[in-house]
C-alpha cells in the first residue's frame, strides 16, 4: 500500500451500491466473530469448558472495565462497548493476513464507528437524564460553556476517528514501505509493533467511548469538565 490511503477501491457493485474492500473485509470479520461466538456459546454449562472459561473471562473483563470507567451497572453498555472493542481489535489485526487491508485503515470505517459512539452518547444521555436533563448537561459548569461543549461533541468524535485511522493507517503504511525497501524479514518487527498498536488502539477506542457515554450518563463534577477537546479526551475515570 503505497498509493493514497484515502482512496477507496471498489471491488464490485451490489445493485447501485459500490462495495469497497473495507466493507468486504468487515463482513468477513463479522462472519468470523459471530460464527465463532455462536459455536463457542452453543453448549454452555455450569461446569465450564476451556473455551467457555475464555469467553466468561472476556465478558467479565469487559464488565469490570465498564464498571470501573463509568461507575454504573454495565448491563446496558456491555454489547456496544464489547462489540466495538472486538471489532476494532479484529480489524486492526486483520492487517497481518496477507493481501488484506485492515478496514480501520480506511477513514470510512473509523467514521462509522465514531458516529455510532456519537449517537450512542446522545441516546444513552437522553435515556438516563431525560431531554431537559441532557440538554442542561451542556451548560454544566456555566452558560458560557454551552458553545464549547457543543463544539467538543463534534471535535472529540472527529479526534476519535482520526486517532484510530492515523494509527492503523500509519502502521500499514510503515509496513508497506519496509516491505518495498527490504523485502523479507525486516517488516516483521514493524508488524509486531502493529499488533501492539492495534490492541492498544482498540482498548483506547472503547475506553474513550465509555468515557463519553459515562460523561453523558453521569452529571460530571465541574472539575472534570473538558476544556480542550483534543488533549483531554481521555479523562481519568476515577
Amino acid at each position, binding site marked *: 500500500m503505497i498509493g493514497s490511503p484515502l482512496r477507496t477501491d471498489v471491488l464490485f457493485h451490489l445493485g447501485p451500491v*459500490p462495495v469497497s474492500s473495507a466493507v468486504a473485509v468487515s463482513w468477513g470479520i463479522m462472519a468470523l466473530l459471530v460464527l465463532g*461466538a455462536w459455536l463457542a*456459546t452453543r453448549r454452555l454449562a455450569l461446569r*465450564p469448558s476451556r473455551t467457555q472459561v475464555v469467553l466468561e473471562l472476556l465478558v467479565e473483563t469487559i464488565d469490570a472495565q465498564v464498571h470501573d470507567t463509568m461507575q454504573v451497572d454495565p448491563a446496558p453498555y456491555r454489547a456496544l462497548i*464489547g*462489540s466495538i472493542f472486538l471489532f476494532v481489535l479484529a480489524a486492526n489485526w486483520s492487517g497481518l493476513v496477507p493481501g488484506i487491508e485492515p478496514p480501520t485503515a480506511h*477513514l*470510512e470505517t473509523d467514521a462509522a464507528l465514531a458516529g455510532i459512539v456519537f449517537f450512542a452518547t446522545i441516546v444513552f444521555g437522553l435515556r438516563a437524564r431525560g431531554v431537559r436533563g441532557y440538554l442542561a448537561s451542556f451548560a454544566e459548569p456555566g452558560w458560557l460553556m454551552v458553545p464549547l461543549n457543543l463544539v467538543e461533541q463534534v471535535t472529540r468524535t472527529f479526534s476519535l476517528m482520526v486517532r484510530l485511522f492515523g494509527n492503523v493507517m500509519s502502521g500499514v503504511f510503515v509496513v508497506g514501505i519496509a516491505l518495498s525497501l527490504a523485502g523479507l524479514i525486516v517488516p516483521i518487527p514493524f508488524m509486531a509493533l502493529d499488533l501492539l498498536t492495534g490492541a492498544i488502539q482498540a482498548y483506547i477506542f472503547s475506553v474513550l467511548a465509555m468515557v463519553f457515554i459515562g460523561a453523558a450518563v453521569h452529571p460530571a463534577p465541574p472539575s472534570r469538565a473538558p476544556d480542550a477537546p483534543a488533549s483531554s479526551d481521555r479523562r481519568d475515570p476515577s
Partner: protein
Amino acid sequence: MKIDFWTLALQAINALVLIWLLARVLYRPVVRVIAQRRNAAAKLLADAEAERDRARQATAAAQAQQAELAVGREAAMKAAQADADAARTHLLAAAQAEAETLRQRAQAEQDKQLAAQQRADEQRAAMLSVDIAGRLLERLPASTRVAGFLDDLVASLQVLPESQRQQLAQAATPLALVAPRALDADERQRCMSAIQQAIGRTAALQTTVDPNLIAGLELRSPDLVLSNHLRADLDHLQHELTHADGHA
C-alpha cells in the same frame, strides 16, 4: 479529502448488525451462564451458611450441655465434698468421742484397778495386821480369852430392847453359845448364869466351839446373833479399814 458515503453507511450498518448479533450470540448466553453459576454458588453458599449455622447451633447446644454438665458435676462434687466434710467431721467427732470414752473407760478401769489393787493391798495389810493381832492374842491366857468377854456380852444383852430380849428368852430352839475353845464346867456355869440373869429367865444354852473366834463369845439365836469376840472386832476393823478408803 473525500469520503465514500456508501462505504460509510455500509460500515455503520455492519457495526450495528455486529453489535446486535454479538449481543444475541455472545453476551447474553455467557452472562446468563455466569448469572446461573453465581446463583448456584450463592445457593451453595447459602446452604453452606445454613449448614454452618446449624453446626454452630449444635456446637452451642453441646457447649451449653457441657456447661450444664459441668455445673451439675461441680454441684455434685461440692455436695460430695460437703458430705465428705460432714462425714469426716462426724467421724472425727465420733472417733474423738469414742477415744474420749475409751480413754475415760481406760481411766476408770485403771482407777478401778488402782482402787482394787489398793483395796487388795489394804485388805492384805488389814488381814496381815489382823493376823498379827490374832497371833498376838493367842498368846493371851486361855481363861481371859473367854471370861473377859462375858461381861461385855451380858452388857450388850442388857442394852438390847425389851422386845428382842423377850423374843430371845421365849425362843423354842436353844440358844447357841460359840466359844473359841471348849469351855470347862465352871466357865460354862458362869456363862449360863450370867446370860440367864441378863435375859431374865432360864434358857437352854448349847455351847459350840469355833477357833476362828480367837477370843470372846458369840450368842446365836434363830433371829439374832450377838457377837462379842475378837474375830468380829477384827472383821469389823478390817471392814472399816478397807471401806473407809473406798468412801474417802
